């Protein structure tokens, strides 16, 4: 016993180093697996508060371009609104009492953006007080952005599509062939679409949209266009380079998407699995 204690005292520096190093490696491994970073995330009171107060100042520098983006989107929505065919009797009847919609949209602001590391995580200024929960989709006016991971009272972290752990179901716009969208960590302007069968009609310039199979995003949210494609080593699936519509380095106003039916869908899927 005496010897053990002596050993510990003699090597206390090395043991402390080993302990702290192991703890940090454990945190790192946790952060590399989806939805597991329990303690270390920036959705907390201190870091969220710091980023928020800095964003209050720096937000002004970007106002002009952000306004232009919003006006552009308004313009698009207006053109949709006034060009829809009215019913024959001239009334556009809307039932304000029924809640018969699957997706609920909310707005948020990105207060911390990152796109240069291999696992990028964003911070938005809405949290569980604004009923943001895990697995909400996050999009911008131009396209897809990511999925909510951790929430605190006033903040939430978003796993960006520029994260090597993220996998989002995506498909071709012109046909229903689908694959999964991943990122290889190299350029923030390009993501990769994998597992798209050889039989699919792929052409340069085609548009990629979300497939709606993941129950996080609705079908048809734009992602990007195909710039390059080739068959993988087994020659069964395409590896497609997709250029994002979003400029990931310049993002401010985003929309959160809640799928009301997600509980029902996951329950049903789990029942099928258990059988």
């Amino acid at each position, binding site marked *: 016993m005496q010897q053990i204690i002596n050993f510990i005292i003699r090597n206390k520096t090395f043991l402390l*180093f080993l302990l*702290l190093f192991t703890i940090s*490696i454990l945190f790192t491994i946790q952060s590399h697996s989806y939805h597991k970073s329990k303690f*270390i995330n920036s959705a*907390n009171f201190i870091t969220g508060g*710091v980023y928020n107060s800095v964003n209050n100042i720096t937000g002004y520098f970007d106002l002009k371009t952000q306004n232009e983006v919003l006006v552009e989107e308004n313009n698009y929505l207006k053109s949709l609104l006034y060009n829809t065919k009215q019913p024959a009797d001239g009334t556009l009847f809307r039932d304000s009492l029924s809640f018969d919609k699957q997706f609920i949209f909310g707005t948020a602001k990105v207060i911390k953006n990152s796109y240069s590391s*291999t696992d990028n995580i964003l911070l938005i200024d809405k949290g569980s007080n604004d009923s943001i929960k895990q697995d909400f989709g996050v999009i911008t006016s131009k396209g897809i952005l990511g999925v909510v991971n951790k929430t605190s009272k006033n903040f939430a972290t978003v796993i960006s599509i520029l994260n090597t752990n993220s996998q989002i179901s995506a498909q071709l716009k012109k046909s229903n062939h689908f694959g999964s969208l991943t990122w290889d960590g*190299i350029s923030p302007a390009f993501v990769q679409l994998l597992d798209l069968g050889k039989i699919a009609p792929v052409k340069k310039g085609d548009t990629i949209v979300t497939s709606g199979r993941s129950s996080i995003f609705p079908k048809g949210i734009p992602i990007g266009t195909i710039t390059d494609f080739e068959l993988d080593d087994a020659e069964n699936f395409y590896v497609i380079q997709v250029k994002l519509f979003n400029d990931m*380095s310049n993002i401010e106003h985003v929309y959160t998407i809640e799928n009301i039916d997600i509980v029902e869908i996951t329950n049903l899927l789990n029942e099928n699995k258990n059988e």
Partner: protein
Amino acid sequence: MNNIVSANILRFFTLVLVQVLICSHINFLGYINPYIYILFIILFPVKNNRVLFIFISFLLGLSVDIFLDSGGMHAAACVFIAYVRPVVLKFSFGIQYEHLTMKFDAVDFGSKLTYITVLTVLHHIILFYLEIFSISKIMLVLQKTLFSSIFTILLCVLITIIFSRKTK
């Protein structure tokens, strides 16, 4: 004594805030960022309690990690360079360090540059290896290490020169 403690506490918070609010958002050429917060470890007094020093370095890395959502990679790299610092000190300053009388303001530039370079490169290799976390992408790790190291070393040397206390 008190003066040194308060100076180090101030340096800790300043460097963390400068790192997470400015330096991590530079993204020069897309991905090159300086990691100047390791100046805290580089400039920590030589005569110290090693256990305390390693623990403070862990806290430094962890606070940067929380801000940048990076798990524990900064903490791991910081703890490592804090542990190997005596060896690096001996390697770069030689006999001066043995006497435990040296001050960073009063050493010659060449050995100081060696010291900063060795610590920075060690820190960056561990950091980027843990960030990318795959052996097959070792070239990407080395590439990021090289370019970010140059940036970090340049800034660290500049900052030490600007804030040195030599009054002449």
